[in-house]
């Protein structure tokens, strides 16, 4: 414990990096995943095929493989060589998580009665307008709980970055554990920091559910 307190700057820096990784990856995955979902339910068959292929390919690939590709394989052929490590981490996590976000959003879209979209098209809205102002707002409401699960899993998945050059929480945990006989305290402290982060996501999800329930 004394080690942790003496070097709390390192712990806080690591915590901050994990937060950055989680928030940036979360935003990117939500945006990209929603676009993918719109492509998958949209009328253009080329886009539909592309999005379906993406989900099949990425969702069936382990995250570790994604990291190895972005951090080891790609630089070997000259890609991402000068890219900051944080950006590479966000790319690896987002590419992976987007597939899950896409499927969660799609389940929400499917939960919106077909009549809603038909009515929107009947009054002359385009597909884009139908999605953004009629279907997606209702779909998001339905997917808050599964989306929270996806984001929580994503937050914990950022720990893989520990062995890909990012000095985030898990990296620091191993740094401290290597130097101390008191592994248990160190493990519990870092586990607690992850719990705090994940609880923030849960609390946000509960808040959204409550707010959107009133609006229904």
């Amino acid at each position, binding site marked *: 414990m004394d080690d942790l307190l003496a070097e709390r700057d390192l712990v806080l820096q690591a915590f901050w990096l994990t937060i950055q990784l989680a928030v940036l990856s979360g935003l990117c995955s939500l945006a990209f995943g929603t676009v993918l979902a719109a492509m998958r339910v949209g009328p253009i068959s080329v886009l539909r095929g592309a999005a379906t292929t993406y989900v099949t390919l990425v969702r069936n690939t382990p995250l570790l493989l994604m990291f190895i590709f972005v951090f080891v394989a790609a630089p070997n052929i000259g890609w991402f060589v000068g890219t900051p490590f944080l950006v590479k981490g966000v790319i690896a996590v987002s590419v992976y998580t987007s597939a899950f976000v896409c499927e969660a959003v799609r389940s929400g879209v499917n939960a919106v009665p077909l009549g809603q979209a038909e009515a929107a098209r009947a009054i002359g809205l385009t597909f884009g307008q139908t999605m953004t102002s009629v279907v997606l707002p209702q779909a998001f409401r339905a997917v808050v709980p599964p989306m929270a699960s996806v984001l929580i899993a994503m937050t914990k998945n950022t720990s893989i970055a520990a062995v890909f*050059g990012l*000095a985030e929480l898990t*990296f620091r945990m191993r740094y401290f554990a*290597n130097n101390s006989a008191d592994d248990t305290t160190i493990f519990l402290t870092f586990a607690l920091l992850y719990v705090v982060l994940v609880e923030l996501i849960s609390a946000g999800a509960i808040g959204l559910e409550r707010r959107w329930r009133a609006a229904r």
Partner: protein
Amino acid sequence: MRHIRRAQAATVALVLAAALAACGDAGDDDDSGTDVDVAESAADDFDDGTRMRELADSGKVVIGVKVDQPGIGFQGATDDMPSGLDPEMGKILAADLGIAPEDIEWKETISDNREPFIENGEVDLVIASYSITDERRQVVGQAGPYYVTGQQLLVAADSDIESLDDVKGTEVCSVTGSTSLENIEAEGAKPRGFDTYSECVDQVLNGTVDAMTTDGAILLGYAAQNPDQLKVVVEPFSEERYGIGYSLDHPEMCEWITDTLEDAFEDGSWASAFEATLGQSGVETPEPPAMDECPAA
């Protein structure tokens, strides 16, 4: 029926692929190390009841080595024997017992299982980039050192990094959780932790990070694989003394290991072992280190 046929086809394809892979590798297996003079009727040289006598009589010795550190202890998928400085030391010791290199049983050890392997008698000797420390000497015997190295930096051949002061603000790779990474962070470098040394070498080769750091001996091994693209720089800024692990149940082994290595230092077989392995990186063969006294039995 169709399924069976498909399975057969897959099996055939796999076998073919394996055969092809084996062909591809067979050609470049030219670093089989140095030859050693195997002592004849060696058993008579040792007193009854000593472990050396037992080993010489049985004509078999089990030696634990690493298999993932080029130049030190390395065994590729198609190699039938490990190569590197550590196996060379093993061959020298076995030869003194009258055991030919092909009769040595090599056992892969990793850093975490070296003490248990010695304590349980699974191996007779551990020669696996095994740094001598006081903590380890509490539980196992360590004779030597037969090689002294220290933390250094591996950089691209055209790198500007020349001294330890140059690493401030640069990105330096090593294995996550290792002491080397902590040491370099203390020097002001940005630590980049990866899972394996070979991933770090890739990061240096493709220019993602500025340098990689760990024991110089390990770095020399990688530099020997890519002498045109990589070089080892900076005076060692820590001291690692590689020793040979043996069981404390057989304290008599220490004198034997030390004497045999002393002979190898003097007759030049240590130097030729170094030249055939780590020396491939272009580094000069160092003076053999001074060895520790064996603890009084």
